[in-house]
Every structure is written in C-alpha cells, then in structure tokens.
C-alpha cells in the first residue's frame, strides 16, 4: 500500500540556511494493508521527519513515497489524501488549540469532509468513534484540553482519525506520555484497528511496545536503516550491533541492568552484511540474511 523508495530529507540549518543536515537518507520500506510496522530509533534519528514526509507536512528531498503506486506529491487534492492517511503525534497537549474546546478536532473534520451531515447523525458518529477508543462521550465532549488528561486527549486524536475510514495511520510516539495502563489500552486499540485492515506506522523508542504490536520492524539510526524485517527475527536474532545494544539496554522488570551479562563483546561479532552472500544484497546497503530480515553493514558504521 504505502511504499518508500530511497527517501531522504535534508534540512537547512544555521544562519541563512548555510549548513545542511541530513535527517533521513535513502530509506526504503513498505507498509501493507492490515500491517503494523514499527519504526524504532533514538531521538533525532529521523523518525518524526519520516512520518511528517508521509503526512505531507514536510517536503521530500529525495526519493519517492507512493500510495498504491501513486506518488503522493502528485496527489493534488490534499483533502483526498488525508481522507486515507492520517497521523497522531507524540504530545497530545500541543495537538489541541488551547483556546477552543477539545472536540473541535471533530468539528474540523465535519466542516471539511462531511459538511452536509446532520447534527444528530454526526453526533452519533462521533460517539461511535469515541466508544471505539473506549472513551465515554459524556466525559470528554464539551471540555477544554486542559481539563482532560493526556490519555484522554491522545485517544480522542485516534478517534478523530478513525472518523475518516482511513487506510494508513502514522502514529508518532503516541504512547510515551501515557502511563502504563493507558499505554496498553491504546496499543490494544491499535491492534484492533489493524484487524480491521488498517495499516499502521508505529513510531516508537520503546522496544517492548514495538515488539508487542508490530508485524515488521525498521530500526533507524542517524537517518539510515540499520536493520529491518519481521519483528520476531529482528528481536529474536538481532544481527546489527546497534540493535543488540538497544535490546541490551531495555529495562526489564525482575532483572537489573547490573545483573544481566552485558553483551559488550558484540564488537567482535563479524559483520552480518559482509558475511552474507553477494546475491542477498537485494536492497541498496542492506543484505537479506533471512527471509524478510535485512541488515546494514556494521563495519561502515564504526568507521
């Protein structure tokens, strides 16, 4: 459904845009229908930039992004595009205009997409969407953003996206602000949406959460893909030292960092990319070491 092909993004920074900052370089992956792909990487690795490019909030500097084979920048009617692709951002508090009531996010959708819907019919629709994210409409409608908790605001944003019968959802770190129990609620909701055929790009820095919901995983570092593929393969037999070090630093209950034998010896493991036979290098810079499990060269990283 959604396909990224050699996508890069260059920001101009500094006075007079004199310096260039390559936030994303040469990233290719796909998100299929009913598939959850998690995008993992440290802050500044380019996750949000990728998400914003997919949402057409940032221009693409190189490569193409296609939806069903159509270049998204060639879709002139943005409204049509947003009917299919929606996003939810990291900080629920800044997604709401503080001077208006929070349910304005729904009103905006009605105004733009369903101007002819009757008030009653629309209210039913909104209530249905809210119930699908396990919110009590009476509890959240008609309130100002500061009167609602982060978890409620975040779920309202998901309900807003659901109102549109979208096909792809870009979820940019939507759970890092939530407490553990709300996190699980939101994750379960995403999984339910997936079952309905929704494709989800789940951006996160939390590996256990990524692992919990996703079918495929893309690990990003300094704007480049270091490893990607089926979630069980990436997490079960990580091939890139960066992925391994990430997995080693995941905080676990019942096991302290100090107890776990630290895999500092990862340096000595030979580079999986170079070990792989020449013909497995099917994608630029990546070698397919297992079916649907790609890894980048680790030696080049070190250099």
């Amino acid at each position, binding site marked *: 459904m959604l396909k990224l092909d050699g996508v890069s993004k260059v920001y101009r*920074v500094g006075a007079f845009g004199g310096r260039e900052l390559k936030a994303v370089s040469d990233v290719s992956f796909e998100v299929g229908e009913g598939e959850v792909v998690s995008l*993992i*990487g*440290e*802050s*500044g*690795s380019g996750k949000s930039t990728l998400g914003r490019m997919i949402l057409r909030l940032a221009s693409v500097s190189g490569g193409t992004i296609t939806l069903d084979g159509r270049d998204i920048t060639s879709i002139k009617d943005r409204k049509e595009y947003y009917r299919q692709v929606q996003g939810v951002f*990291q900080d629920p508090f800044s997604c709401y205009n503080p001077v208006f009531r929070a349910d304005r996010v729904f009103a905006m959708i009605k105004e733009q997409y369903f101007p002819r819907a009757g008030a009653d019919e629309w209210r039913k629709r909104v209530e249905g969407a809210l119930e699908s994210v396990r919110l*009590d409409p009476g*509890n959240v409608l008609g309130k100002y953003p500061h009167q609602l*908790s*982060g*978890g*409620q605001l975040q779920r309202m944003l998901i309900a807003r996206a659901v109102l549109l019968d979208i096909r792809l959802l870009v979820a940019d*770190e939507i759970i*890092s*602000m*939530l*407490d*553990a*129990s*709300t*996190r*699980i*609620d939101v*994750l*379960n909701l995403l*999984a339910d949406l997936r079952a309905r055929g929704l494709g989800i790009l789940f951006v996160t*820095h*939390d*590996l*256990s*959460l990524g*692992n*919990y*919901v996703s079918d495929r995983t893309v690990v990003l570092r300094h704007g480049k893909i270091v490893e990607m593929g089926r*979630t*069980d393969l990436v*997490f079960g037999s990580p091939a890139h030292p960066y992925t391994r*070090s*990430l*997995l080693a*630093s*995941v*905080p*676990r*209950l*019942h096991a*302290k*960092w100090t107890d776990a034998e630290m895999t500092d010896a990862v340096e000595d493991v030979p580079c999986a990319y170079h070990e792989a036979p020449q013909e497995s290098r099917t994608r630029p810079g990546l070698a397919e070491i297992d079916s649907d499990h790609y890894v980048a060269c680790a030696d080049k990283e070190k250099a």
Partner: protein
Amino acid sequence: MALNVTDLRVYYRTLRGEVKALDGVTFSVADGEIMGLAGESGSGKSTLAKSLIRLDGRMRHVGGTVELDGAAMPLSDDDAMDEFRFRKVSLIPQYSMSALNPTRKIGRMVGELLDSRGERPDRAELERRLELVGLSKDVLDRYPIELSGGMKQRVVMVVSTLLNPSLLIADEVTSALDVSSQKAVATTLLGFRDRGLVTSMMVVTHDISLVYQIADSIMVMYAGRLAEKAPADVLVTAPRHPYTQQLVSALPEVGVRYEDRRLAGIPGSPPSLLKPPGGCRFRDRCPLAFDQCAEQPPFAEVAPGHLVACWKAE
C-alpha cells in the same frame, strides 16, 4: 531524614472550583534514597514536584508541612523559598530538554541561567561535571539542535545539580529518549547520588521498569493521594495495593506479543479531582472494593518500609 512531607495539600484554583491535585500526602525520603514516583497521568506527580520548588499563581498551599534536612520549607512564601531553590532542592522539569533555546549556545545558556540565580559560573567545575556524565566540554560551544536528546538531558542534569542540592527532583526526564539514552541518563542519576553530588532523589516517571533499575524505593500515586510506597523490588514483585498490582501487570516485557498474550489496562478512569468522592479514591475501579472502602483507608505500614493505603492490604 532528608525530606519529610506531612499531610501536604496543594490545590489549583480554577473558576469551577478547586482541583485537589495533592490531597493529604505524607511520606519521607531518607538520606541517600532514590525514590521513584509513578502513577496514572493526572495523579499529581508533577504537582508534588512543583510544590517543592515553586507554587505558580494558581496553586495554593492548603495545608501540611514539608521539612528538608530538619528545616521547614515555607512553601507559600515565594521569596523565602529562594534560599532552598537550586541550593537545597533542584527540579529538572518535564520537557526541560525541549525547552532549551535553540538559538543560544549551550555554554552561554548555562552562564545566563546561573547568572539569573546569582551564582558565578565556575567553568572548570562545569567541565569536570560534564566529563562525569560522559560529555566532552565541546558541548558548551554547540547549539541544542546539534545534540541528541540524551545529551541535552544530561546537560540539563549537570546544570541542575551544579550547586549540590540535597534533593533532586527529576520529572519524566527519560520519557522522550530511546532505551540506550535512557540507560545513560538513568545511570548518570545513579552516579550523582553515589558521588554525593546530591543527597537524595525523587524520580518521576511512567516507566516503572526503568525506575526499578535505579531506585531504592518506589511510591505510587493515585488521584492526588498516595497508594503505596515500598522498596523497589517489593513493589514490582509483591505489590499490595490493587492499583499497583494492575499497573505492574500492565507492563509489557520484551518478547510479549499481542497475539500471544493480550495485556489488559485498568478499566475505567480516575475520579475528577474537582469534587473527588469520599472514601478510597480507587473504589470505582477496584475489583476488591467492599463496604469499608467508603471510608478513606490510612496510608499504613504493612511491613518495614512498605506503606499501603488499602483496607485489604492489612
């Protein structure tokens, strides 16, 4: 005892009435203790953190006392609190990392900050501290945008602890970081305590598995009150409060997948703090609730260092 909080009540004034964000909180943090503070969002964690530093215009100190190293803190007297701020108590606020001014070099920003607190920046000491947290002194000549989130967070931490406060409060300092930076930041916090740069610490977080790694004890808040406080490993292995039990069981571990085991959140939502119900505030969502819960349970010690506010826990 480094910090002694007794029956602290802090309300927010709003047009619709008072939000009882902190409603009778009693606990203490010992010298050298790192205490994790967890709880649902909106339970009053940041309110507690802010109360110990500065009450903003809408916050009102309604009752209770706070003692730090034996001296009572005059919470509602903004000027008198100056003596405590940064020197004795220091706060790393939520989102402080993203609040760094992008147009100022780090070094200049640190200088201005110390200036505004009436301290002369000691460059040598600053560089020594940066080195301690694994940053080179070059960061002082860089812009915030050039640093990773973890690096920025460590800069903020160095600045907040420059005056060796006895209590450091870190509010969600790791939420925006990836796991390896989280680990670096968490170990830095630990290092501060071990080197005696700060005496004790309160670490506010949603990430119980992270705070478990460094904390001696964990305290859980619910709807403006305390639910449970216990040594870290006791809290995650044998929690006594029904809320903590559900919270801990909602934590996914690496390897758990949605298809294999669907984790469950806690059904329902916390009560409004404008007119909180009487009795135990968790009553509506508690699977164990019974008649007595209509009365407020005391925050009582059930084992050494293990306090619980639940009638069923005794």
